[in-house]
């Protein structure tokens, strides 16, 4: 009996269907103090003073905390450039300037309105392009520039290569912010347990939350414990601290249990988003469809704080030419501080934006050469042994072509034949295909490890196992996956494997629930720890082992050339979509999706399919409906009434997840990560399908009906104009 690949049920499933599962806001007790954060609600200003006297005078108010109360007022996942409570300056609307702590939420809310903050507004760097102007206001003055990172990649002789091409195409693409909209808004509690300060919230990485909070309060890490309640979705949005530091501060200051529950608007204003990109790109190819040169200049809006921007942009840089072998590359990836909401991690981590341009361009190259887009892709896709633009040989197990071929077959079988696509005058059908690549795990020399402890309960034989690993189950089901791997490795029943995972003091550091990495990394750690514990038991030693798994090393990229080894594992994807466009309104529906993924090995097939289908819902939103709007630093879409998440009606009835299992050499049982991949090629596949339906390309995400209609109108005008000029040309000699 093998447990690998079986659709066994999650152990927390029953609690989730009975209402017993407890999420952070469910932990709040009325005797706790309640916190209310005071947001800046202005994009850039000097703080001239904060007067909390009237707030403090309100009965029930315990404290109004400001920057002066924070022992070390600096934090950030990579670059500690953010203040828990702002001291002198606010840099975006979601900056926090004070924290009211009161006996109940109503009092906290009323007191917050009594805190007077005097500001002097400052000119803003309103978007990435203007923030690059020489006279732009500086978001972080001491840096002397708004440029957070300028990563270059140079390979081959780009000018000569373009000169030798048969076709050269250029275009400019843009993408907007994307809001995670995890359905459970940020919330949590903090309290003392003996001498230990406990913060119980939802997050993606216990031990990183611990590191940052201990640093903020200038405490030893052993004096703080982070616990995760049930996590109501994350998608990258809980990678940065939001309410955690506020809670920790409030309890540390008052020595009493505290709670905070953000409403939806606070959550949307108060946490980072997916980066908006501006991408100018030029692609050159030979007549036979070989693409030989890609030049790209990407400028991303990093918002007011660094978050994970530099890593996101490096990922976008290495994927500027998509999943294609490319002898000549010139890439400039720039991320800029602005006075907008910070940008950071979101499922896909720079890869969806890069593919938006790259996959649109390769389809256009195919059209220009009158070659099938699948054939052009097949000709150029990475193969085993190929070199990346960064100069390294790709990690083994390159499956891009097999994945594309499978996608083309499945799509061909299921999609409406060309002859029938335009049967209706105003409802036009079209199909599109796109490929994708995305790293699994941390990149660019970022320390990558996952640690697990396995304890065996054994006498004559191994009876049970307890796995300790601080891996966040954000809903993807990783706890079940890890139990399955241990049960399989030790030949135990699933019920005989317990997991301890939601307390930083009880479980070692697994690394984050991000970069599609936990199945691979935490999976390997528990697998190797299980084997080591069994060996110890066989040797008659205490049947327990702690193993830190480290994958093949990566290196930083040279800033000027990009040279380096960016990643140790990639996932490969291809998607086909069929859409229907109402050419009179621009309204577009996705009718069918074929989503093909090499997952190495599906540890739990049902959950892999769930990840594909779930990620596709976010991909549909990213491509078509989720239009996050910001004007002059102010967020115009802080509610679900204006920021439109896909409902079940927006999803096609025909979603075909195709799982391929071409084993990764390092992953546990060959598994590689996959949870982000469906977002990577999706939007350009939809754009290609819209083009197929209408003859119009859309260059800007999201592809709203207005934009699609405008593109259709412009394409029509171009056709009419060129027809007119043809008539003119032929008639003039007569």
């Amino acid at each position, binding site marked *: 009996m093998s447990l690998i690949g079986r659709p066994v049920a999650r152990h927390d499933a029953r609690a989730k*269907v009975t*209402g017993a599962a407890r999420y952070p806001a469910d932990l709040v007790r*009325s005797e706790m103090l309640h916190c209310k954060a005071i947001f800046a609600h202005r994009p850039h200003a000097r703080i001239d*003073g*904060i007067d909390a006297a009237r707030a403090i005078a309100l009965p029930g108010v315990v404290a109004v905390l400001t920057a002066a109360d924070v022992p070390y007022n600096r934090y950030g996942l990579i670059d500690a450039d953010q203040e828990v409570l702002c001291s002198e300056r606010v840099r975006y609307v979601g900056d926090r300037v004070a924290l009211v702590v009161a006996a109940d939420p109503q009092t906290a809310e009323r007191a917050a309105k009594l805190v007077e903050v005097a500001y*002097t507004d400052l000119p803003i760097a309103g978007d990435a392009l203007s923030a690059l102007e020489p006279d732009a206001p500086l978001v972080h003055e001491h840096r002397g520039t708004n440029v957070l990172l300028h990563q270059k990649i140079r390979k081959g002789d780009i000018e000569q290569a373009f000169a030798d091409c048969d076709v050269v195409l250029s275009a400019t693409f843009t993408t907007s912010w994307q809001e995670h909209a995890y359905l*459970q808004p940020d919330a949590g509690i903090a309290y003392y347990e003996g001498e230990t300060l406990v913060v119980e919230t939802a997050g993606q990485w216990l031990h990183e939350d611990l590191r940052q909070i201990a640093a903020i309060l200038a405490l030893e890490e052993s004096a703080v414990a982070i616990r995760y309640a049930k996590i109501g979705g994350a998608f990258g949005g809980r990678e940065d601290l939001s309410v955690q530091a506020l809670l920790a501060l409030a309890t540390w200051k008052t020595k009493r249990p505290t709670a905070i529950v953000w409403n939806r608007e606070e959550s949307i204003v108060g946490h980072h988003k997916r980066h908006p990109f501006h991408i100018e790109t030029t692609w050159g190819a030979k007549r036979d469809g070989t693409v030989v040169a890609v030049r790209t200049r990407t400028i991303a809006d990093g918002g007011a704080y660094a978050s994970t921007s530099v890593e996101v942009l490096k990922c976008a840089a290495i994927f500027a030419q998509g999943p294609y072998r490319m002898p000549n590359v010139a890439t400039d990836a720039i991320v800029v501080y602005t006075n907008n909401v910070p940008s950071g991690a979101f499922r896909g981590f720079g890869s969806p934006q890069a593919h938006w341009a790259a996959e649109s361009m390769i389809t256009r190259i195919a059209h220009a050469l009158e070659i099938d887009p699948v054939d052009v892709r097949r000709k150029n896709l990475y193969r085993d042994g190929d070199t990346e633009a960064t100069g390294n040989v790709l990690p083994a197990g390159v499956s891009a072509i097999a994945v594309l071929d499978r996608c083309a077959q499945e799509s061909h079988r299921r999609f409406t034949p060309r002859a029938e696509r335009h049967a209706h005058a105003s409802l036009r059908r079209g199909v599109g295909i796109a490929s994708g690549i995305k790293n699994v795990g941390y990149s660019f020399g970022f320390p990558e490890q996952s640690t697990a402890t396995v304890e065996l309960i054994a006498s004559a034989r191994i009876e049970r196992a307890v796995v300790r690993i601080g891996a966040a189950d954000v809903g993807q089901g990783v706890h079940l996956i890890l139990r399955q791997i241990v049960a399989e490795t030790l030949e135990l029943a699933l019920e005989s494997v317990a997991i301890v995972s939601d307390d930083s003091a009880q479980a070692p550091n697994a690394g984050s629930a991000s970069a599609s990495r936990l199945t691979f990394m935490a999976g390997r750690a528990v697998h190797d720890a299980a084997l080591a514990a069994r060996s110890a038991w066989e040797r008659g030693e205490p049947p327990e082992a702690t193993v830190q798994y480290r994958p093949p090393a990566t290196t930083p990229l040279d800033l000027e050339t990009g040279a380096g080894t960016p990643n140790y594992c990639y996932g490969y994807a291809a998607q086909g979509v069929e859409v229907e466009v109402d050419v009179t309104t621009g309204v577009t529906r996705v009718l069918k999706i074929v989503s093909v993924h090499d997952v190495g090995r599906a540890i739990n097939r049902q959950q892999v399919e*769930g990840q594909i289908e779930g990620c596709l819902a976010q991909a549909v939103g990213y491509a078509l409906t989720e239009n996050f709007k910001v004007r002059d630093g102010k967020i115009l879409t802080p509610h*679900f009434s204006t920021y439109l998440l*896909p409902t079940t009606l927006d999803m096609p009835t025909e979603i075909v997840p195709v799982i391929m299992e071409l084993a990764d050499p390092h992953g546990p049982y060959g598994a590689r990560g996959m949870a982000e991949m469906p977002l990577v090629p999706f939007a350009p596949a939809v754009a290609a399908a819209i083009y197929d339906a209408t003859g119009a390309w859309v260059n800007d995400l999201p592809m709203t009906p207005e934009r699609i209609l405008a593109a259709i109108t412009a394409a029509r005008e171009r056709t009419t104009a060129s027809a007119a000029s043809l008539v003119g040309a032929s008639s003039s000699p007569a």
Partner: protein
Amino acid sequence: MDVGKVTRRRFLVRAALPTIAAGVGIGSPRLCALAQAAASVSVLPASGPGPMPVTLNVNGRAHELRIEPRVTLLDALRERLALTGTKKGCDQGTCGACTVLVDGRRVNACLTLAVMVQRKAITTIEGLADGDQLHPMQAAFLAHDGFQCGYCTPGQILSAVALLAEKRATDEASVREWMSGNICRCGAYPNIVAAVRSVAGQPS
């Protein structure tokens, strides 16, 4: 005024106000408005009518509460009755996470005042199972893996229970249509639809 009692912060505020009121700085009208709003808060009564007795009949049990008439059913359930299975995703009627049944009809508890539903039968996720025996819809969500993070799940399940009672779950399209008020950001939609259809007796 006793100058000695002016804190640095208060001084800064006072020093800043005239400059800003004189129109220097982009946000000056806003700051004044903020200051006035703050001033008015302390002179006006805190809120509307005070607490009143409200009887809520939840999952077959009557609860006597003293709550202000402005309290929503959602907050009454979660904060007064400790029935936290009903979730708050938006508090604005846009996500469906707070869906409960009132006399068998589904409502958004965040848009319903508790006082409006006195003497009505309220069913929350905690009241669906019969002891250890899951309601068929709960069992179907389990069998079809109709969730990931589970945050939308109580609302989805109650919506689905009502949908079947409404006899609207006639085919896949109608299930999707009538479940479209319940957002699932994890995107478990295919499995949710399959779960609902299986209870409706439709093959998926």
